[in-house]
């Protein structure tokens, strides 16, 4: 058998069956994707044109009336505003805080590893656990926050952060940012290691201040990391339903409803599956637009940086 190589034969056979292999290997994930994502997505589109209540086996097609109702639904309007606030805050706060922490911890600080671990820890916790921790922090009578304020001011302070319409959403955003900051920090730390130390050293010898080095050298060179951070923040904020659900449930009286929460309430509390589906369709379109804009910007970025 010496001299006879099987490799070309296998290669030829593989080449011949390449198409078949593709189909075989792609079928299981595509099936799972179809059943868990495409199927429910299509049925949401379908039910958005009906008045199904979830229990009944029969329902009527109501055309576009669910979508018409959206325009007169003041809670939908409020949820849209909250969603915008949620997304912008969930994008900006963890990104900026993560950058600041990364810059602080990148320099040789005492206990740097310890702080990195501490700041990264929240991302390892589930949103439910994070939510519960912050419910305790915000507890009006014995929570950490009010107790701290009382200690500082010396006056009785019993503000119910999660039960007041003016502060509920922002209180959840703080909790969310606390969790997500660790992720941004780690990505920025990885980005900082890729910046050649010679550039920073030579800029320092040329007389650049710390602030100038950060603004004119480090931040521009961290753009690839920023792209990843923004992508993850947008995706995570669109998925950010669980922490709101556990902390406020959209309350008090719908003041912290986002579109996802409003869709949930209409569908599962009011039993208006048809209307809830129409909200989910609108949410889907919004997500599609955001992702479209993001990919367009990403393409531009690739052209500039040639990556």
């Amino acid at each position: 058998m010496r001299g006879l190589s099987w490799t070309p034969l296998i290669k030829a056979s593989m080449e011949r069956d390449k198409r078949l292999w593709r189909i075989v290997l792609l079928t299981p994930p595509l099936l799972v994707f179809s059943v868990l994502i495409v199927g429910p997505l299509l049925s949401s589109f379908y039910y958005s044109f009906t008045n199904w209540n979830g229990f009944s086996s029969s329902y009527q097609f109501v055309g576009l009336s669910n979508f018409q109702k959206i325009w007169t639904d003041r809670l939908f309007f409020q949820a849209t505003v909250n969603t915008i606030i949620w997304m912008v805050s969930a994008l900006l706060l963890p990104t900026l805080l993560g950058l600041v922490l990364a810059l602080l911890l990148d320099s040789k600080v005492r206990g740097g590893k310890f702080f990195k671990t501490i700041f990264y820890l929240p991302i390892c916790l589930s949103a439910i656990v994070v939510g519960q921790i912050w419910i305790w922090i915000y507890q009006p009578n014995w929570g950490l926050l009010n107790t701290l304020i009382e200690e500082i001011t010396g006056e009785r302070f019993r503000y119910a952060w999660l039960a007041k319409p003016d502060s509920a959403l922002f209180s959840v955003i703080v909790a969310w940012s606390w969790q997500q900051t660790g992720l941004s920090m780690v990505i920025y730390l990885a980005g900082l290691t890729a910046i050649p130390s010679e550039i920073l050293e030579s800029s320092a010898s040329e007389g650049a201040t710390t602030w100038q080095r950060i603004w004119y050298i480090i931040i521009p060179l961290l753009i690839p990391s920023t792209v990843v951070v923004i992508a993850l923040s947008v995706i995570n904020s669109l998925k950010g339903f669980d922490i709101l659900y556990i902390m406020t449930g959209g309350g008090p009286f719908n003041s912290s409803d986002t579109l996802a929460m409003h869709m949930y309430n209409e569908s599962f509390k009011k039993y208006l599956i048809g209307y809830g589906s129409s909200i989910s369709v609108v949410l889907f379109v919004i997500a599609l637009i955001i992702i479209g804009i993001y990919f367009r910007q990403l393409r531009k970025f690739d052209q500039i940086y040639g990556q």
Partner: protein
Amino acid sequence: MKYINRRKLLGTLFALPFIGLTTSALAQSEVTISHYFTGELGLKAFGEQMEKFEAATSYKMKNSPVGHEDFKTDILVRASGSSLPDVFSYWAGARVQFIADSDSLKPIDQMWNEAGLDQIVAKTVADSATMYNGKRFLVPFNYHYSGMFYNTKVMADAGITKMPTDWNGFLALCKELQSKGITPIALGSKNRWPAQFWFDYLLLRSAGPDYRAQLMAGKASYDDPQVKQAMGMWKALVDAGYFVENANANTWTDASDQVARGDAAMTLMGTWITGYWNGLGLVPGADYDFFPFPSIMAGVPSASVGPVDGLVIGANTTNPKGAEEFLKFMVSDTGVQAAWSKAQGALSANVNVDASNYNSVMLKAFETVKNSDAFAFNYDLATPPPVAEVGLSMFARFMDDPSGVDEIMKQTAQDAAGAFNE
């Protein structure tokens, strides 16, 4: 190469129908159930009652309990996927009406009549809780009564020996407690529903059960003078500082703890609070007691408010016989009913359960319901779910800022009218 043994293959093919029959027989002997009795005491006690059923019959129960609040969503998800269990617990009233209207329940008239449940089920809850669209769908498992539960020591220390029976007496009590530095009323409306009992009783005692029934059915409006009057009385209590601070930040157990600790004197809550307090080691009668919500207008019938927990059968059950047997057993067996009502701090739906089974507080609750002119489901069980959502949010909004009551009621009237048309 391994060859398939033809003898084995034939044997397997021959056995297949029997395997199918066995599986089918197993399915026939298994009854699937989902319920919301998931509190520490409730879960254990319900499991014990199911074991009694299994011991008394040839059926096996396949149990899937879901937390009280999550159950409302879970059961809808299961219904929408046509995968309702054979039996599930549900709250009698508008919620059962909603799914009965959707043809998702199996009628139980035949079983009801054959088992003579008319002679067993308490009259207080029999027809209102079990009949929907002229058919019976629900077997009541227990019912609760909502009253003003108080800390006896706090009241005694404040020198209060006689509990009020009318509105002026109640206002005087609150004033007296407040003057002694005690917050009169605890409320934990974080999950909104605990606030509903205030609306229920204020409206029932001032406008009467008939008007309230009209409002619940969409035949009256939330900006009617009757509703405004009830809300006005509620506002007066909040404005006077009789309620605890930040009610919307607390759950009903937080409010119960406030009363148990003596941070507040009383709370308007259902009899399930007795199960909770007993679990904390409080002694009925000695540590806590209750008085019925005071009368407001002379001549208005006295109504008791509370929920009825029931068991229903999914329309597509694969084991209707087993499901019916389970429902029949759970309400008929006095041992089950006595143990269950004791563990849950509930009133038994079975008239044959000896009243001596109740502690002094529950006995008083039992007598109060018996002597009432009417029994009304609490708000979120009395009006359709989409409307209940509107009302429950209204209560929370009101507790946050009672000064905006006029605007709140105007908005609620508009939203409720829309929800009735869904």
